């Protein structure tokens, strides 16, 4: 999963508010909530950052957490996004 991008033709709407962040998919009017880190990662995906870059940024954000734990979490999160058809 080295190249990440928002699923084409999906018309996803990402919104970051004071308290919340969410992705809205007009086709089924579903809303997926993201927490702060989820939103951080999503914004990087939107900017077409590569997987390695995202991992690096997260490691910088959480210097006290082991890299492989962050990687495991990131992979799980990306898997969830993929499962929901939000990235490819």
């Amino acid at each position: 999963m080295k190249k990440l991008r928002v699923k084409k033709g999906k018309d996803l709407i990402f919104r970051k508010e004071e308290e919340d962040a969410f992705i809205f998919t007009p086709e089924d009017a579903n809303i997926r909530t993201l927490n702060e880190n989820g939103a951080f990662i999503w914004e990087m995906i939107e900017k077409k950052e590569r997987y390695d870059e995202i991992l690096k940024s997260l490691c910088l954000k959480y210097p006290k957490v082991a890299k492989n734990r962050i990687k495991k979490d990131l992979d799980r999160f990306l898997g969830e996004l993929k499962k929901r058809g939000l990235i490819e």
Partner: protein
Amino acid sequence: MRGVLDRFFIGDFKRHMKKNRQKNYILNSLYINPTGRCNLKCRHCWINPYYSNDTGASGNELKPGEIISIIKEARELGLANIKLTGGEPLLRNDLEEVFEFCAKNGIKICIETNGTLIDRGKALLLKKYNVDFISLSLDGCNPSINDSFRGVKGAFRMATDGIRNLVKAGFNPQVITCLHRRNVENFEKLAGLCKDLGVSSLKINPVMPVGKGKRLIKDKQNLGVKEILHFKNHILPGIRNKFQYDIFIHLPPAFLSLKEIGKRGKCNIFGILGVLPDGNISICGIGFHVDELLFGKPLRDRGGLKRIWRENKKLNELRKHVPDRLEGVCSKCIFKKICLGCCRAEVYYRDKNFYAPFWFCQESYKQGLFPESRLIPSTSDKGMPKRKIKQE
């Protein structure tokens, strides 16, 4: 679904979406109005009942056995709970049979009452039948504010006694209050009083432009959209912080955080019917006002409740076209599938149109106060009112 570090999280809102594409609709709740009478004369009441102090059933009201018959039929359609509402439901002191039937059959009971008729004995009776949830009304922190709004002297004392009796009997009641010009200044005191009385939550309702509420709005005794939002965003958080219990204002999802949307109950119009005192069926209590929304009497009409539930034209129209045909700001709202346009009964009452936009959202849109982040950007502006662009 959460990561090991619980830091990346994605949650779905799908479970909050009301399914309106299924074939067999489940009749989850009956809103039962056992009487159209009330012992108070509240200035905001949307039902506009006639004043009466008489307990017991009056001539044209359903007998307990008749209410049970309707509940029995509703069970076959999936009934899980009933809400007794009004008029003042506890004016009917002959409902023990109904409570007993529900308790025996695992049907949850919720009661919306003005609280003035709950003496110790009544509180214990409700506890005996495991009533699940009770909400009472209090509209001011003292007799002067409350009683002038509720139209009867002594209402404050009787309602606060009612709360005490419920708490003593082991209930955690909710207080519902209507936000209006006279209580907004003293709202903190009201919140403190409720905390001292031992209520579990305080729900704040804006005045609805239905029934007597229209008069209140005409007299400018309500708060406008801007004031309500100011109250929600700038006053309420401090009060909540001070008293540390659940105090919330009932507004459409567009004005709530996602957490709040997940937490608060929403009107599931696809799973409710109202039972009026004379046995007529409607969407909810709106049948008190709108004759076209009276669907018939299951105890009298062929096919009973099942036929109404499955074949009534208005119900099927609602199911088919809400939320897809919602108009105005509701058509552009990200939450329309979750919200279903808030209160469709109120909308129909005002516009005779199930799909008109909900007043609070439409008005806030016009005033430039509708959160931009909750609008679907690509939708057309056709039929939309002009609006100020500035956001709050």
